[in-house]
């Protein structure tokens, strides 16, 4: 998550004070991502240095100092919004690594290990889903954050389920003759406008 671009997005609505930016950032992310004042002012100073925002009184300090976005800042924000995050390479996923390591350890029951992680993930999902019971009490941003977290955790559970089934089948089938290198994916940056 880029605080820098979140600040630019908030300032694209109109000039705001530093303290106001912090409060609005937290409110719009459903209070899921708390920010400290230091992070806000450091970010704003860098944005000002880079010419992406400007302040009423460049020499002034404190919560009453107002900021507004510059044309360069608006352009930077627009480009950031349209640039897909880099998902082209698999992340260094600790859970995947644990399962792969366990496969090499003859004394480890991989299915039992997978179940430990599956239970933990489903318990986390239960906690997030509990929040949805009171969905009427929170705003659309927080609802989207909760959905995103549930889909993310769900995808990990699905991977564990698939791995579980694949390993079960593999135990009764002959091993493939060779291993294949990881495919290299080309990254495409930007979206056609």
């Amino acid at each position, binding site marked *: *998550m880029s*605080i820098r671009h979140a600040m630019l997005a908030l300032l694209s609505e109109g000039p705001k004070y530093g303290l106001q930016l912090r409060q609005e950032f937290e409110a719009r*992310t459903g*209070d*899921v*991502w*708390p*920010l400290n004042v230091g992070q806000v002012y450091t970010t704003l100073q860098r944005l000002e240095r880079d010419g992406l925002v400007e302040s009423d009184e460049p020499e002034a300090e404190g919560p009453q100092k107002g900021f507004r976005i510059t044309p360069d800042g608006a352009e930077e924000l627009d480009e950031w919004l349209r640039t897909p995050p880099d998902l082209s390479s698999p992340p260094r996923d600790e859970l995947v690594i644990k399962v792969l390591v366990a496969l090499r350890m003859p004394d480890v029951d991989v*299915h039992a290990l997978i*179940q430990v992680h*599956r*239970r933990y*993930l*489903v*318990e*986390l*999902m*239960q*906690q*997030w*889903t*509990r*929040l*949805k*019971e009171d969905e009427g009490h929170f705003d659309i941003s927080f609802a989207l954050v909760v959905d995103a977290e*549930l*889909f993310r*955790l*769900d995808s990990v*559970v*699905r991977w564990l*389920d698939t791995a*579980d*089934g694949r390993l079960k089948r593999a135990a009764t089938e002959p091993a493939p003759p060779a291993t294949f290198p990881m495919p290299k994916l080309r990254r495409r940056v930007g979206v056609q406008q």
Partner: protein
Amino acid sequence: MNVLELSNVSKVYGEGPTEVRALSGVDLVVDAGALVAVMGASGSGKSTLLTIAGSLEQATAGEVRVGGAALSRMSRNDQARMRRRSIGYVFQDYNLLAGLNAVENVALPLELDGMSAKKAQSAGMAALEELGLADRASHFPDELSGGERQRVSIARAVVGDRQLLLADEPSGALDSTNGEAVMRLVLAACRRGLAAVVVTHDAQLASWADRVVFLRDGRVVDQTMPPMGIEASLVSRGPNS
């Protein structure tokens, strides 16, 4: 109060070389007001567990109690009466009767149990209203969307004085929004006092449950702890975490 109790339940199909052990020594207790999800891969015994819990099939060994009454000590007629009065079923493919409209489908189990048609229709209408389907009462199943059909089947499952709701992949054919709506209705029924068991392979649906039980090769291998509040862990996360 235990609404459903399975004690050391096993189920074996066939015998000799064709023998298939679908369930082995399953213990499960579901209290009034509780929503329990059963997760497991295909062939893990989830659906068998549900049909045995609902007395649609007999266990090979072990005991099943519904509302404290042991199924093995009931006559077939008593079991059928208990199924009509105490247990509601929800299936993936809805199982609504095509020739009956929504309210007639919902009222059917009450009428089969001897209630007058007028009273049964009135109760059916009340159940549909509770699920926001009053304006669909006179529609036939083929005039309803998939989500609406499943809501009608839930109304049919909770109408009357049911104690236990059993659902087998209740949102299997629905998109995630309608699937969530189904689970909200099941949870609402539990909050009114029903006990429910939902069998699913979908973790997002299972996560609506108070407890998730994991089945593998016919055995209960694990279960989740009751969900706690998540707020404390959320606020400790920074934006870059």
